[in-house]
C-alpha cells in the first residue's frame, strides 16, 4: 500500500474502524514507513489533546 492510499484510511485507523485485514495491511505500512508513522503519532497526540480540553466557565445570567 502506498503512502497516498494510507492517507485515505488515516481517520478510520485512528478511530479503530478498519477491518482486521485492512488494519493489518496498514500496520505493515506503518512499520516500514517512518514518515507515515510520524504523521499518525502526531495526529493521535493532537486528537488526544483536543478531546481533553473542555472549558470550565460559568454561564452568566
Amino acid at each position: 500500500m502506498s503512502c497516498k492510499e494510507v492517507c485515505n484510511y488515516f481517520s478510520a485507523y485512528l478511530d479503530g474502524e478498519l477491518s482486521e485485514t485492512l488494519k493489518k495491511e496498514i500496520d505493515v505500512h506503518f512499520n516500514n514507513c517512518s514518515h507515515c508513522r510520524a504523521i499518525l503519532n502526531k495526529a493521535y497526540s493532537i486528537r488526544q489533546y483536543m478531546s481533553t480540553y473542555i472549558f470550565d466557565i460559568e454561564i452568566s445570567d
Partner: protein
Amino acid sequence: MKKKIENTIPTDEELIGRFQDGDIYAFEQIVKRYKDQLLNYAYRFLGALQDSEDIVQETFLRVFRKKKAYKNVAKFSTWIYTITGNLAKTELRRRRKKKLFSISGLKYNNKEYEIPDRKRGPDERANSVVMDEIIQKAIDSLSPKFKEVIILRDIQELSYEEISKIIKIPLGTVKSRVNRARLKLQEILGDLFKSPEK
C-alpha cells in the same frame, strides 16, 4: 441470587421527557450536563466567548420554550447540538454581512479572552492557554466545512452517525471530511506535537 443494580443516572432522553411533563429540575439537569460542552462547541466555532455564551443561552431558551418540539426518535444530543450549530452558523453569517458592509474596516472582534481552566495547575494552565490559543488558531484557519466536523468529532467526540444527522450530510462524506480535516490540522500543528520517534 444477585440483585441487578439499577443505574440511577437518567439518560438525556429521560430528562427531556420529564421536563416535557413539567419537571423543571430535569431542565436544570440538562443545563448542567450540556452547558460546558455546548459552550466549547460554540466557542470553537465562533472564537469569541461572549458570543458563544449568548448562543448557549439562546439554545437553552429554545429548549425551554420549545420542549415539545423534541420527539424521542432522535438522540437528545443530536437535537441540542443541531440547535447550537444552527445558531452559531447564523451568527457567522451575521458577522460576514457585518464585515461586508463595514465602512470602517475595523475587525468585528478585537477582544482577547483568557479562558480559565480550573482543572489544571498554574504552570500547566499557562502552557495550556498558549497551546489552546495555537489550536484555536489552527481550527480557525480551516474552512467552515472542515472546522465543523473536526469540532464535532475530535472535541465533542460525537459519533459519525450523529454528526451526519446534525449537519445533514451523508455518513461517507462526514468520514472523508474528518479525515481531510485531521490531515490538515496535522500539517498545521505537526511541529507542536512532536513525534516521539527520532
